[in-house]
């Protein structure tokens, strides 16, 4: 018995302590490397999508999750230095080009008395004062030159800050150009996400007013930017432009959202049958103005055509907009307009691809991801799609990504850098980034 106990007791004690210090698998940090890239000093130039603009305004939290800042965060894991952005005040309600505040998700009661979740402005007015206050600091040169509204052709224009206050508030001087400021700190590595702004105002306005930058000017200006950035041997990534008409701003309201009861259909038929247009019970294409459509210049929308989110929905629901009163041109994109827009995107992308080849740069393709978001992707157990609000990738304006969306777009840039330069820059874990906040 003694013999047994003399073995039993130490064995029991040994097993107990082993169990308490229970062995854990060892975490070995995967190797990271900049490859052929020198990540020391990183700058990014782009438009609103680069700046951190989201929920239809530039504001502090959005800027924290800007594509430029997210990319810099990953590059800092392979030797990149401190990164500075022209932050809005941290308690600011944000501001957009029309002086309005950011959107949040709240409740809105429509003309029928139905209250539902809807984007609403955070405040009655935007932080216009912040737009007028210059935050340039020579000792902390900015790395994020994402400027809402900046076209490719505007990047090297001197005194651009006078025309565009989003640059004016961060420019080094009244006469400065974005390209001058961006190259002043001798970047060793760069990212360009330019071109969306060359078409966005036109497309967002229903292809009614203004134009898109013509391809020759676009190409020339783009190449000049790349030349200036690479003159000292800097390497970087340029990005193709996504088809913005695949974004929720354009895809949320269906072309045939005119759902009619038999009575409604009959009363519309009474109005329209004389000019050869008829309606039926159930879904019908909205009525739009189209100068090319017969003698009266009105017609049904057809499959593939897009109704914009700027459409006043109360007018649709209660005041017969889109039926008795056809949509004005500014609220829709017709097949003809879409063909022109998509052809222009293809031309921009051909120009960017050619420049990437000539200057031996990495080429990011976030356009492929934007395209996939239409059907939806599953990312680490989360479904992300272009569905307005609930899709989880776009902010409440339906045109700019939310922080999680910016993270998956940034991963496309990282993928391009890794494959071009043999780098091992870790991707971002996008589920760690906020999506849409629900009340």
């Amino acid at each position, binding site marked *: *018995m003694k*013999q*047994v106990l003399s*073995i*039993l007791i130490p*064995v*029991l004690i040994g*097993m*107990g302590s*082993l*169990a308490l210090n*229970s*062995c*854990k*698998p*060892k*975490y070995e*940090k*995967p190797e*990271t490397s900049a490859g052929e890239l020198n990540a020391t000093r990183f700058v990014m130039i782009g438009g609103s999508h680069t700046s951190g603009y989201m929920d239809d305004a530039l504001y502090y939290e959005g800027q924290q999750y800007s594509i430029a800042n997210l990319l810099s965060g990953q590059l800092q894991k392979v030797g990149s230095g401190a990164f500075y952005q022209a932050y809005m005040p941290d308690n600011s309600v944000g501001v957009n080009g029309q002086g309005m505040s950011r959107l949040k*998700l709240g*409740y809105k009661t429509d003309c029928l008395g139905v209250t539902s*979740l809807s984007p609403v402005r955070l405040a009655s007015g935007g932080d216009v004062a912040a737009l007028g206050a210059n935050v340039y600091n020579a000792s902390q040169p900015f790395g994020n030159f994402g400027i809402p509204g900046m076209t490719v052709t505007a990047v090297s224009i001197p005194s651009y800050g006078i025309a565009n206050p989003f640059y004016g508030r961060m420019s080094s001087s009244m006469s400065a150009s974005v390209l001058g400021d961006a190259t002043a700190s001798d970047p060793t590595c760069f990212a360009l996400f330019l071109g969306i702004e060359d078409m966005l105002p036109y497309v967002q306005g229903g292809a009614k007013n203004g134009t898109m930058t013509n391809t020759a000017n676009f190409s020339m200006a783009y190449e000049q930017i790349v030349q200036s950035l690479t003159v000292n041997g800097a390497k970087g990534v340029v990005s193709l432009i996504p088809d913005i008409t695949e974004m929720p701003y354009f895809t949320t309201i269906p072309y045939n959202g005119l759902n009619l009861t038999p009575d409604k259909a009959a009363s519309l038929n009474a109005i329209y049958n004389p000019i050869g247009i008829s309606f039926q019970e159930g879904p019908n294409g909205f009525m739009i103005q189209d100068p090319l459509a017969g003698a009266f210049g009105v017609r049904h929308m057809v499959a593939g055509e897009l109704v914009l989110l700027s459409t006043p929905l109360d007018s649709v629901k209660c005041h017969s907009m889109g039926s008795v009163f056809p949509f004005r041109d500014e609220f829709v994109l017709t097949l003809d307009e879409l063909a022109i827009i998509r052809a222009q995107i293809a031309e921009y992308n051909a120009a960017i691809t050619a420049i990437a080849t000539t200057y031996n740069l990495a080429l990011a393709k976030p356009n492929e991801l934007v395209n996939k978001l239409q059907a939806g*992707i*599953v*990312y*680490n*157990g*989360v*479904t992300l799609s272009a569905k307005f609000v609930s899709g*989880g990738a776009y902010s409440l304006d339906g045109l700019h990504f939310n922080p999680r969306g910016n993270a998956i777009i940034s*991963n496309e840039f990282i993928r391009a850098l890794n494959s071009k330069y043999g780098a091992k820059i*870790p*991707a*971002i*874990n996008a*589920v*760690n980034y*906020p*999506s*849409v*906040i*629900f*009340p």
Partner: protein
Amino acid sequence: MQKLVLLFFSLSAVISIYSQGFQVNFQGQKQQGMGLAGTALSEDASALFYNPGGVAFVKKNEINAGFSPIFANTLFVDSASGEGYRTKSPMGTPFSAYALFGFKKMESLKVGLAVYTPFGSTIQYEDEWIGRFALTKLSLKSIYFQPTVSYKINEHFGFGAGFIIATGAVDLQKDIPVQFADGTYGHAELTGKALGFGYNLGLNAKINEHFSLGLTYRSKVSMEVKEGDAKFTVPESLSANFPNGPFTSSLPLPSVLTLGGSYNSGKKWQFVLDINYVGWKAYDTLAFDYESNTASLIDTKSARKYKDIIAFRGGANFQASGMIAVRLGGGFGFSPVQSGYVTPESPDGNRIYGTAGLGFKFNEHFNADLSFYYTYIKRTDRNQETNLQGTFTTIAISPGIGLSYKW
């Protein structure tokens, strides 16, 4: 006998169980020291689990209880970001308890009751881990109650059969990707109790004084959750989209066919070998059927597509003295989880394990056994449903203790 019933009752009330997409063969500390093999043995009451056919050859009445706390740690390394996340699973507590009786007037007949925990797991990941929208915690518990009859046909053959009443409980939790104003996420918790039935059949053949063979079949048990309780914590504006309410589900616990052999040198050495064929193919789909569906809350059917697998287990017992036995063993099991289907709930891979044990015979009535189990599992995969991609590494250890009283 009344005391016995009480003992079982208190054990089952406090004890849960553990495994990872795999059966827990922690049933009898002697076998646990010898690589979890022992289907051909008929030495003690643990034969009620290992081979009801061997029960008839056990010479004495016996009460036998064992407990093997499992300490398991899983590390997941996300392949895209390189970030690592760990589990904080609670200690698993598989147990087994056996009672075996013979009759003076009918020596070839034995009856017994086995209460044990052959399947189950509790796995809980650290907060805010990358897969939290796939799973944050899964606790599966099952306890089998198996009344058994065993009959010795002659000196060479024994046959036994047990009826299995399986009770179980499930608790599945994950985050929902909708955010509160403070940035935290919605959460879903599905809980339910399950019930299932099955049987355990066994044949034991004593070829001669050295060799024995065993063949057993434990049937599949379909654990049905008939009235689960789904609870959702979401922002107020979405509460109508995620109604709390009942759900139904079911989980198959697979059949196990085992062929085992043993060799006894006479005095000092004993060797055992088991081959399991586990019918995991039964686990094809994990489905949840919610009583009230909404656009956000639809019934789910997740493909699991497990495949049948084979596992090899073997070990040796060395009788060092009249009182002390030393045991060593090990095994290899193929994973039932196919590529593309590895989930955080069951981060399974092919596994190799080793075991060791000590046996103490205090007197002719009272025995104590100690065992130790170690396993290491590594699996890299991209799940087709969630696109979670990375490497799961699991280390599990289990020290066990068992006591038996024979008369």
